[in-house]
């Protein structure tokens, strides 16, 4: 397209001839059909290429992922459980000013959430001041009574966080959910970047893209900051559930990026409240554990007794202050989907500030009035189970059948605490290379936030893509893919 062409006819040009603009915010095109200024160079580059050239690059990228074994595991299938996470060729571009807002908003949010967790496991001021209903906390599956009164290193509960943002038709970014337990996907952010630089070296070079490659070092210094005081040169490990976990690739990848050991529960043991790992040179003391294992599985003596993945006695060593766990135990109480509704109020309560990034409008179903409204409008709303993630346990009203809606109606009435509802949002759309054409697909954005010495947000993140036409579900377990995310200097 040339700049003096006012018509949205761009979309009739190969390979954009199937590209349709609708009500959703389009990352690349303005309503007029003109490419947004920060997308102009990418747009021109695509026009310069034939469909075959694009296809070749896509294949080169796919092969690179497969051969590097950058895969994830799909549960519930016996055959072919290892799959590559579909990678979309075309990067998503975010301007510096958009990013500044995201950055300050996320920093504000993680600060408030940490203050909340410190409060809820100690004085519970916020409950006494009646800003959050106590039953919401005490009925949460992720509230850990065992953590009451336990001092955690530097009073930091959430040091590694991935927050899902979506973009409304107005172009405003809003928070869809917080992931405060063991957020995953950061390795795909790094791998996507590496592949994109291979596939589009010149385009990348000309854009002035802020680097993400220092994530490993930033994570390491965050973990070092949390080491117990007894160890000036702490031994830090990544604890993985093992090779059959869907995110195992990422665990290994991060351990390697940081140059630290990747351990499984069976590599660790606790002797007199001190954690050791079994090495060829004998036992070695462990000071900080970046654990990629849910609370439930971490110590069979305290939590789920049937867990084979954890380390017996680990919780006592933790409570004794002999080892740091990152994230702390019990952070899930603050990413419960029903609790999400209260996050803006928490920001006001602890920081005395207005939220910089808003929440999505949410209905709390324990409230009778809101519940009635939701039950009457199930066909237009999205209903989510509060404890589920990965796109499971969800009803998308406009795409649902009558039976599904009846099923959810029954479940909501039986256990309203277990569900929330939100309007069906038109996630923003970005150009994706699909079957030889460039088409618009819905995307979200998960930036990665670290909180050690200070809050640090890697400029970029994982842009997840709902690869099926019209689909709003971006989760990798549900047919989603991802693309590189460029945050520009300018």
């Amino acid at each position, binding site marked *: 397209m040339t700049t003096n062409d006012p018509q949205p006819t761009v979309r009739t040009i190969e390979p954009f001839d199937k590209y349709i603009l609708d009500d959703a915010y389009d990352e690349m095109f303005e309503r007029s059909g003109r490419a947004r200024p920060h997308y102009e160079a990418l747009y021109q580059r695509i026009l310069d290429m034939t469909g075959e050239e694009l296809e070749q690059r896509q294949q080169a990228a796919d092969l690179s992922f*497969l*051969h*590097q*074994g950058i895969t994830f595991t799909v549960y519930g299938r016996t055959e072919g459980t290892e799959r590559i996470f579909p990678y979309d060729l075309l990067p998503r571009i975010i301007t510096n000013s958009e990013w500044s807002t995201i950055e300050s908003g996320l920093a504000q949010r993680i600060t408030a959430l940490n203050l909340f967790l410190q409060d809820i496991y100690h004085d519970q001021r916020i409950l006494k001041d009646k800003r959050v209903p106590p039953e919401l906390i005490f009925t949460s599956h992720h509230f850990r009574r065992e953590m009451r009164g336990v001092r955690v290193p530097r009073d930091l509960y959430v040091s590694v966080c991935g927050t899902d943002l979506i973009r409304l038709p107005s172009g405003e970014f809003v928070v869809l959910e917080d992931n405060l337990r063991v957020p995953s996907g950061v390795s795909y952010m790094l791998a996507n970047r590496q592949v994109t630089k291979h596939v589009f070296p010149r385009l990348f070079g000309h854009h002035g893209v802020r680097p993400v490659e220092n994530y490993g070092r930033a994570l390491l210094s965050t973990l070092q900051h949390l080491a117990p005081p007894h160890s000036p040169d702490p031994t830090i490990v990544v604890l993985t559930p093992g*090779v059959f976990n869907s995110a195992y*690739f990422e665990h*290994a*990848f991060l*351990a*390697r990026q940081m140059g630290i*050991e*990747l*351990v*499984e529960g*069976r*590599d660790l*043991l606790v*002797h007199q409240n001190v954690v*050791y*790992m*079994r*090495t*060829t*040179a*004998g*036992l*070695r*003391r462990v000071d900080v554990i970046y654990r990629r294992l849910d609370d439930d599985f971490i110590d069979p003596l305290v939590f789920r007794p049937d867990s084979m993945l954890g380390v017996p006695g680990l919780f006592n060593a933790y409570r004794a202050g002999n080892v740091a766990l990152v994230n702390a135990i019990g952070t899930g109480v603050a990413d419960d989907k029903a609790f999400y509704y209260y996050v803006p109020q928490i920001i006001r309560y602890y920081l005395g500030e207005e939220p910089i990034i808003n929440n999505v409008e949410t209905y709390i179903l324990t409230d009778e009035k809101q519940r009635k409204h939701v039950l009457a409008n199930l066909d237009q709303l999205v209903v989510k189970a509060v404890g589920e993630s990965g796109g499971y346990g969800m009803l998308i009203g406009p795409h649902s059948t009558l039976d599904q809606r009846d099923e959810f109606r029954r479940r909501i009435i039986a256990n309203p605490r277990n569900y929330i509802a939100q309007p069906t949002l038109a996630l923003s759309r970005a150009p994706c290379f699909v079957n030889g054409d460039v088409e618009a697909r819905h995307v979200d954005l998960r930036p990665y936030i670290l909180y050690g010495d200070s809050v640090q947000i890697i400029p970029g993140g994982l842009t997840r893509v709902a690869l099926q036409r019209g689909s709003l579900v971006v989760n990798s377990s549900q047919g989603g893919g991802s693309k590189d995310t460029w945050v520009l200097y300018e």
Partner: protein
Amino acid sequence: MLSRVADNLYWMSRYLERAEHTARLVDVHLNLSLDQSRKMPAALRWQRLLETLHLPVPETGIRDDYHGTQIVAFDAKHPNSIVNAVTAARENARQVREKISSEMWLQLNTLYLDVRRTTFDSIWNQQPHEFFQAIKTGAHLFQGITDSTMAHDEGWYFIQFGRSLERALAIANMLDDQLRVLELSEREQTPETDDYFEWLGLLKFFTAFEAYCKVYTADLRPRRVAEFLLFNPTFPHSLRFCVEMMTSALQSISEATNMSRNSRVHRQAGRLRSALSFDSIDDVITRGTHPYLQDIQRQCMQIHDAAYENFITYPVESALP
């Protein structure tokens, strides 16, 4: 280094060596069967080959080359078939991906994907030789990549340890089998034509024919062949060479872990090493080749056990800092 990681590196290496060894054996076997005498029926040869590879022989026997090759290369039920050995090597590597170089992983994963992608019939209908060649080259490439992209530290030595132990066991086992059929005599003789091909085959099983010729010329003498495969100090598929490699890998591991040299694993490895350095072929014949080679295999297993007790499965009380 984590004990579990050492365990994975060790087995990754052993399984890949096993795949390579198996591919080489079958390749040579198929090739030789064109020339070898009919004194021994083909089905019996296959049966012996399968037994030395610790693969199950079907009750109904081996029907033909197709059947035998299929079992060795693609038997899904048995861990020692080529496909399963490559898969096991790759699975061990997958568990320690962060400990090996990306280049190593890339090579092993590519080999695995190639093997998994092929079907036996497609191999058989084209050139079985090419398939076996690809396995051998793939394994050699992996070793070369390992040597040039991974730090030669403890982990690398566990890889060497696994490879040399697996190879020593395989050589001892294969020699034992062959020397039970082709008996060694006290005095040196020149074999008949039929037997000549058997001895030639034995050398070729270990890619040793060319190396042997450089030392002794193409004049194949049974005692020399056995001596070469047992005691040659410089040929990588001689038993002595493998044990030297194993001993030095163990020594380096001990240095890396500050382990006392007097431990059981060193006594055992040292004993085997000195036997292979100082024994002669006459000693072997006096003791009987079968007991001698059985004893070597037993000693290898003891070294494996002792190394595990030292570095990997030690009791907690003995290892508190």
